C-alpha cells in the first residue's frame, strides 16, 4: 500500500529532524561558556555523586565526537542525565510531568479547534457582514494577547473574584482522595478548564481566520452549486457538503500549532501551577538544573516531530484522494 511507504518516509524524515535536534542540543551544551561543570559544582544542589555521573555521561576527557557518540547512545538507552534539584533521573521526572502536559495540550487543542472552526465557519457564512467584522476583530485581539496574561485575567475573574473555578493545580489537594471516581474526574475537569481555555483561546484566533478562508473558498466551488441545484437545504449544503471539504486543510493546521502550543504551555503551567513539563522546565532554569532543562527541551521537540508525523498520517487518511493512491 503506497500510503504506508509515505508514512515510513515521513517517519524517517522526522527521525532525521529529531537527530538534528539532538545535535543542536549537544552543540548548545558544548558551546555554553566556561567549564561545563564549574557551574554545576557551584550549584547548591549538586552532590559529588551527581557531578561524577555527569563527568561520565559527558565523557569530558574525551574528544568531542566521542562525547557526541556517548551523548546520543545515552539518550537512546534512556539515560538522560541526573537532575540536580530532584536527585533523580531526568527521564523519570519528565515521565511524571509529561501526562499532565499531554492532557493540558489536548484540552487546549480541543478549545482551539472547536472554537476556531465554529468562529471561522460562522464568519464564512455571512462574509463582510457586521458580525463577520466583529468576529474578525475578536480573533485578532485573541491572537495578540499574551497567553500568560490571558491566563491571569481568567484566573482573576473566574477564579478569584467569581470563585467558579480553582486557581491552580491539577486536583484539589484536600478533597480529591475522598471523592468518588466520577467526583474525581469532575474535579480534574474543573481544574483543567481555565488553563485549557487560556492556552486554547489564543490559538483559536488564528484557526478562525484560516477556517474562514477555507470555508469561503469551498462555498465558491462548483460542487456546492450542484448540491444547491439539487434542492438540498442550505443547512445540509453547509454542514454535510461544505464543512467536510473545508475541514481538510484545517487539519494540517494542527501540526503547525504544536510548537506554539508547547511554548504556551510553559507559561500557562507556570501561571496555574500545573505540574507539567513546562513548569518543570521553568523551575529547572531558575534552579540551574541544566540536565533537566536540556532533557525537557529535547522531549518537547521530539514530541513535536512525532505529533507532526501523526497529524500528517491523519490528513492522508482523511482525504479520500490520497487514501489509496
Amino acid at each position: 500500500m503506497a500510503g504506508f511507504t509515505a508514512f515510513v518516509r515521513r517517519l524517517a524524515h522526522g527521525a532525521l529532524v529529531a537527530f538534528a535536534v539532538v545535535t543542536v542540543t549537544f552543540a548548545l551544551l558544548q558551546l555554553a561558556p566556561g567549564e561545563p561543570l564549574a557551574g554545576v559544582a557551584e550549584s547548591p544542589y549538586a552532590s559529588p555523586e551527581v557531578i561524577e555521573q555527569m563527568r561520565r555521561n559527558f565523557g569530558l576527557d574525551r574528544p568531542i565526537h566521542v562525547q557526541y557518540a556517548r551523548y546520543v547512545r545515552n539518550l537512546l538507552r534512556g539515560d538522560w542525565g541526573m537532575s540536580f534539584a530532584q536527585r533523580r533521573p531526568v527521564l523519570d521526572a519528565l515521565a511524571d510531568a509529561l501526562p499532565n502536559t499531554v492532557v493540558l495540550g489536548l484540552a487546549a487543542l480541543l478549545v482551539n479547534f472547536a472554537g476556531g472552526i465554529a468562529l471561522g465557519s460562522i464568519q464564512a457564512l455571512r462574509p463582510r457582514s457586521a458580525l463577520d467584522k466583529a468576529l474578525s476583530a475578536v480573533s485578532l485581539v485573541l491572537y495578540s494577547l499574551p497567553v500568560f496574561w490571558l491566563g491571569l485575567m481568567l484566573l482573576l475573574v473566574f477564579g478569584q473574584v467569581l470563585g467558579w473555578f480553582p486557581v491552580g493545580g491539577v486536583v484539589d489537594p484536600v478533597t480529591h482522595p475522598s471523592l468518588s471516581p466520577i467526583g474525581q474526574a469532575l474535579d480534574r475537569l474543573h481544574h483543567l478548564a481555565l488553563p485549557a481555555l487560556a492556552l486554547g483561546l489564543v490559538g483559536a484566533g488564528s484557526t478562525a481566520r484560516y477556517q474562514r478562508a477555507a470555508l469561503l473558498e469551498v462555498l465558491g466551488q462548483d460542487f456546492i452549486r450542484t448540491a444547491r441545484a439539487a434542492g438540498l437545504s442550505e443547512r445540509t449544503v453547509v454542514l454535510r457538503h461544505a464543512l467536510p471539504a473545508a475541514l481538510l486543510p484545517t487539519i494540517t493546521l494542527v501540526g503547525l500549532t504544536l510548537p506554539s502550543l508547547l511554548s504556551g504551555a510553559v507559561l500557562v503551567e507556570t501561571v496555574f501551577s500545573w505540574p507539567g513539563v513546562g513548569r518543570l522546565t521553568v523551575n529547572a532554569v531558575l534552579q540551574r538544573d541544566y540536565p533537566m532543562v536540556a532533557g525537557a527541551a529535547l522531549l518537547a521537540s521530539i514530541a513535536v516531530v512525532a505529533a507532526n508525523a501523526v497529524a500528517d498520517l491523519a490528513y492522508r487518511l482523511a482525504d479520500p484522494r490520497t487514501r489509496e493512491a
Partner: protein
Amino acid sequence: MSEPLLAVRNLSVSYHGPDGVARALDDVSLAVEREEIVALVGESGSGKTTLALALLGLLPEPAAIAPSSRIEFAGISLANADAATWRRVRGREIGMVFQDPAVSLNPVLTIGSQIAHVVRTHARCSPPTARSRAIELLDMVGVDAPQIRARQYPHQLSGGLRQRALIAVALAGSPKLLVADEPTAALDVTVQAQILQLFADLRRRLGMALLLITHDLGLVAEVAHRVLVMYAGQVVESASVEQLFTRSRHPYTRGLLGAARALEERRHRLAAIPGAPPRASAWPDACRFHPRCALAWERCRTEAPILLSAAPAHHARCWLVAEPAREGA
C-alpha cells in the same frame, strides 16, 4: 392548447459590476412542453448558461433579474422567487446537470452518499432506503456495478461515469424538467453519443422534459424536438428541428449550420463566420449580428429587429423575414 410546462417571458438579466452594467439576457422568451426536448444553441457569451442558472435561482450575487421578467413553471412563478419557493422547485420540479463533472461533484463524499442526500431531501425515507434508491438511480443512468460504484469517490471514476453520476444526482428528486448545460462538452466523442442516448431513454421512461443547452448542432439533430438559437443575449431563431435544419431563416443560424456541415464533410476551409459577437456592455441599438452579416442593409443598422413569424411555430429575429425579396438565392 394547455399551458406549457415551462414558460419564460421577457426574461432580462443584467450584471452590476464595478465597471458598469452588463446585460446578459435581453427580453428572452421560450417555452417547453411536457416531455419535450428543447435545445438551446449558441456560442459562449450568448447568455445560455445565464438562462439555465436563472431557471434555478442560482445566479451569482451581482446578477439581477428585471422585474418585468416572467418565469412560470407548472403554475409556480420563479422570477425573483423567495427561498421557500426554490426549496419546493429545485431538484423536485426542475433538475440541473452541469458541465465538467470533475469539479461538479464533491471530492470528499462518495457518489452514493451525494445521491442519497438528494433522495432524502425530497422524500422522507430512512438512510438505507435512500442508499438503495441511489443504487437504483446509478443503474438507471447506465453505471456498471452500481453497488460498488456507489461507495466510490468521484476521482475514482472516469469522465463518462462521473457525468452519469451527475445526472443521477439531478434525477434523484424525480424532476419534471431536466436542464442540461453542455452535458457532453467535457467528454470524448464515443461517450457523448452514449450520454445522448441516455437522455433520450430517460425522457421516454420518466416522462421528463429536457432543456438541452449546447453549442454542438450535431447533438441537436440527434435528440431535440425544437431548437432555439441565441446570440448576444437574445433569441434569434426558434423552430422545430426539421424547420431549422432545412429552412433556417436567420443568417447566424445558417452560418452555424454551414460551419457544422463543413466540419462533417471535412472541407478544406471552414465556412467560419468572420468577426465576433459584440460585448455585453456595448450592445448596439440595432441588429446585433449585422456587422458579421453578409446580407445586412440599412434597416439592419438602424432598427433592432423583433421576432417575426416565418412559418407556424418558426420565428426569426431578422428583417429578412419581413422582406424576403432581399435574400436572393
